[in-house]
């Protein structure tokens, strides 16, 4: 019985890995020759046919930009919800909950016109701005902050720290694992974002990797060019896969962390 289960684990794992091996095979296969022979020609062609370096840079700026602002906004809000009392607390808390219920992705129609009204259509800021807060991050961090002994805050107060200093010296260091968890989730999520940047950008100087890939693949998706598209797909997923394989433990524990409420 146990052996059957072990075997099925392995079979399933191989099944799950097949698409990855498939795309790697396609990307390295020389289509001009019968049978299989390894070539990096596809990668060179893909790299030369679209500004992937620019796309990398754009994705990098967007992902880091979003995370940087998020860290500020969620820290402040999480602290308020964890430790402070104020008029209207209940209702405001509910407003933040709305964002958990209704993901921003569903609001592409009204948000695209808001972007237009702000006059920032086709900019990196337009891609980033709706994601400047994360209600999910706020609730995650609030939970952590609540678990930090109140005595520590009082001690900080005694030493003359104001609230900002208290947050910075007491809460932030102690919540480091939560920040890492949130950071990984935010970065991998934003790296993958597609529909919103597709809608809101027009130029190569702002397009992230995902949109660049789709545009590129559509332009060359004919003839014997599939190897090239496979290579371009690998461009997009490689950094994520590398990061994942290198920091697998952090990744998995981050996602675990976020699942426990």
């Amino acid at each position, binding site marked *: 019985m146990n052996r059957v*289960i*072990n075997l099925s*684990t*392995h079979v*399933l*794992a191989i099944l*799950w*890995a097949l*698409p990855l091996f*498939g795309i790697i095979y396609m990307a390295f296969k020389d289509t001009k020759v019968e049978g299989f022979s390894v070539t990096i020609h596809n990668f060179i062609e893909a790299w030369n046919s679209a500004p992937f370096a620019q796309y990398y840079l754009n994705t990098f700026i967007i992902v880091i930009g979003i995370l940087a602002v998020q860290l500020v906004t969620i820290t*402040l*809000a999480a602290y*308020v919800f964890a430790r*402070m009392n*104020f008029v209207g607390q209940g209702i405001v808390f509910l*407003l*933040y909950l*709305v*964002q*958990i*219920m*209704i*993901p*921003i*992705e*569903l*609001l*592409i*129609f*009204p948000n695209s016109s808001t972007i237009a009204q702000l006059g920032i259509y086709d900019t990196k800021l337009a891609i980033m*701005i709706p994601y*400047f*807060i994360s*209600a999910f991050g706020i*609730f995650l961090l609030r939970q952590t902050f609540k678990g930090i002994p109140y005595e520590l805050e009082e001690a900080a107060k005694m030493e003359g720290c104001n*609230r900002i200093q208290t947050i910075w010296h007491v809460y932030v260091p102690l919540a480091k694992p939560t920040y890492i968890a949130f950071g990984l989730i935010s970065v991998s999520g934003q*790296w*993958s*974002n*597609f*529909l919103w940047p597709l*809608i809101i950008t027009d130029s190569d100087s702002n397009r992230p990797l*995902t949109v660049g*890939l789709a545009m590129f693949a559509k332009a060359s998706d004919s003839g014997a060019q*599939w190897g090239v*598209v*496979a290579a371009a797909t690998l461009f*997009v*997923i490689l950094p*994520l*896969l590398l990061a994942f*394989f290198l920091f*697998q433990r952090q*990744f*998995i524990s981050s*996602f*675990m962390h976020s*699942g*426990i*409420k």
Partner: protein
Amino acid sequence: MRISERMKENVTSWLFLLPSLIFLIMFTLYPMIKTAYLSFFQSDLSTDKPIFIGLKNFKMMMEDEVFRKAFINNIWFAIGTIPTSVALGMVLAILVNRKIKGSALARTFFFYPVVIPMVSAAFIWLFFYTPEYGMINKLLTLFGAGELNLLGNSSTVLIAIIVMVIWKEAGFFMIFYLAALQNIPKDLIEASHIDGASKWIQFRKIVFPLLMPTTIFSFVIATTNAFKTIDQLVVMTQGGPNNASNLLLYYIYESTFRFMDYGKAAAATIVVLVIMVVIAAIQFFGTDRKIHYS
């Protein structure tokens, strides 16, 4: 003195909330209200200025065959993806939670699809599904089934997309279950060993109930995902053939950006929002308090 303390706390609270509140209002709250308002107006290529038409957008939408198809497809899509990927997540978690050779590697393989973007996943599977080239067709021909144009047939296209999404999502839920499994106290399991309970009874009576909060949590996430992700449609099918793979958000996307029919897009957005609220209500009132955010 005390009053001024309280004042100060209030002011500080609001100041701290301000940065996040601005963006929350701009991109979540205000758009919802605006959409609700716009859904009462006709605003498309044939109108210069929006015209108030009451509930007619909703009426027209209900009569629109494409919308009905997208709605029904979305429900089938949800039914197809949610229970399967959550259940599979649980099974995978139990499998890799055992200390056997290669379980760490297996865990890696189950989880990597979660990390990669949906767009690239869609391209990968596009290769698999295309007749004449794709691996799936090579397998099918091996079994003598002949070639199948999976994405070109109304009857198979949605299933093909569901399979891909399950592949992509199951690992995500696996992680939640892994976390939950590792939190089950060892002595509970051991106690049942002493009682001589079989593995199956052990699972059914002890493990499964303890996993319930995770299951509900996963269900909620999977349901939201079933409505908010359409990247794969943009890449693979454009909702076709004949709308057989059209989903609600794709319908909104096309109405807004391809047909410039804003009234319709607003009405369809409202429908999706209502679905989301209903799901949230079920989560809030229908379940154990333990998995609340509060």
